[in-house]
């Protein structure tokens, strides 16, 4: 138990790397066997990590302190009180009396440092985050957000293409209302072309690589369909249907779509 109490007192210095190699070794040995002190050490590590955010403020505050003057004032004060006590009939100091004065000085310095440390930690907003004005996000985050947006848009693009191709492959050129259906398909193809350009930049990213080829193939078909309006002769019609069948486009769309959908949390 005594070892625990001593270790706990030194955990702060241990975590911040301010112990001699011997003391450090002793604490490390104790931490290996004591879960309670280990937990205490983890708390210190977290606190220091959080405080590192406000380190600049702390450094600024620390440089503002006249350390030599502070030590001198503490020593003078101790001397003055000692002189006052000598003037009065003073009881003999106890067995640990000689230890108390420097310990008080250390305690005072410790309190000052601790206070500054806590001020820096709170200022960093770790425990009670305060509103910061304006919007902000790192460039890395924005890249990820754009990739996520592209993933969703690609799933949507593939879904719409799937419906268009299914509808197209089931229609016969000489069936009733074929011209109107071709015209509708042509309009949908124009819409798909508009969507595709916004995902193009992200299709080169690694997680989207599999979607690139298939999206390009769909785009080539859409370009063709967008130009036909309501006119498409039998040969052109069969040629496009054959292209869709030969490239197994619908199967590929399903596979890529499922893979992209599985990336959601």
């Amino acid at each position, binding site marked *: 138990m005594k070892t625990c109490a001593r270790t706990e007192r030194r955990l702060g210095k241990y975590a911040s790397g301010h112990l001699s190699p011997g003391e450090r070794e002793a604490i490390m040995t104790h931490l290996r066997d004591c879960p309670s002190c280990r937990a205490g050490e983890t708390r210190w590590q977290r606190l220091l990590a959080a405080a590192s955010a406000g380190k600049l403020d702390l450094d600024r505050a620390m440089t503002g302190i006249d350390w030599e003057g502070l030590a001198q004032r503490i020593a003078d004060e101790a001397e003055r009180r000692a002189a006052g006590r000598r003037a009065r009939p003073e009881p003999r100091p106890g067995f640990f009396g000689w230890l108390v004065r420097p310990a008080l000085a250390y305690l005072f310095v410790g309190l000052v440092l601790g206070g500054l440390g806590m001020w820096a930690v709170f200022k960093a907003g770790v425990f009670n985050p305060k509103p910061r004005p304006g919007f902000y996000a790192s460039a890395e985050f924005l890249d990820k957000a*754009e990739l996520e947006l592209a993933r969703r848009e690609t799933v949507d693009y593939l879904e719409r293409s799937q419906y268009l191709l299914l509808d197209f492959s089931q229609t016969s050129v000489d069936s009733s209302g074929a011209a109107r259906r071709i015209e509708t398909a042509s309009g949908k193809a124009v819409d798909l072309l508009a969507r595709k350009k916004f995902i193009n930049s992200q299709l080169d990213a690694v997680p989207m690589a599999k979607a690139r080829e298939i999206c390009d193939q769909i785009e080539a078909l859409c370009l063709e369909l967008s130009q036909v309006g309501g006119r498409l002769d039998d040969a052109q019609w069969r040629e496009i249907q054959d292209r869709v069948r030969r490239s197994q486009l619908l199967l590929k769309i399903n596979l890529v779509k499922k893979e992209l959908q599985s990336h959601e949390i």
Partner: protein
Amino acid sequence: MRYKLQKSIAIGILLAAGLALPAISQDRPEDRFLREAKLLIFDAQWAAALDKLESILSQYPASPATPQVLFYKAECLSKAPNRAKDALRAYQDYLKTDDRNESLIEQAEVSIIDLSFDLYASGDKDAVKDIVGRLANPNKSVKYYAAYKLSAVKDKAVAAKSIPVLQRIISTETNPELTDRARIALLRVSPKSLENAERHEVRRPDEPRTKVLRILITGEGTSRVDLSIPMALADLALQAISDSDKAMMRRKGYDLDRILRDLARSGGSILEIRGAEGEGIIKIWIETRK
């Protein structure tokens, strides 16, 4: 009477010619070659397609199919390595033709923006003019695309030219894909401009404040994240956090729906998800600002 008869015959001949023309044009050899080139393009055989298209242009220079051939030639060049400038010229040649196919024109404009962006990124500073010029394009799609692309340019002074169009997208468009992209682009170029756009967005009189999503991730072994973004981007933001943090959230029973539901119920208090020892803490909350 005679005059009327002549007029009817002339109209009849013209109509017959008009009906017969598509049938004749379908038999043109260059149309067949163009179809073959399109097949090659579909299979991503760009070099072979380019050869075919160039041979059509040399053999049938005055063909009605020439505009389309020029367009597909530009497409093939844009896929070929180190041919970006040639592709740019080919698209510009296509735009000079009288072909009025709106889809191909839009596609060509967008491809010019992409190619100019790549040329600018590889050191050709003048190339950015082709993007800036398209911020005033009458076609909304081209204008928006130019603004999105320009916002990604590294030179902030140049990227800032996209701000008015991006702000306009947020204030006038209802399609969330367009507005979310505009928000991300503005966050990249000028967060202050995004704030202004959000503030001026039309709201109900009883909802006069901007809702801001804050995400703070701290702790050992996790990336430190500090975000302050419009609430509209909440689900995107939650999807965009690191895989390890997402895995931790899943282990704790949180999915996207639950987080958004809890945030809506929390009434401004902080939703805190604490991982196991060494994993870190995720704090998410909503602030309202004037």
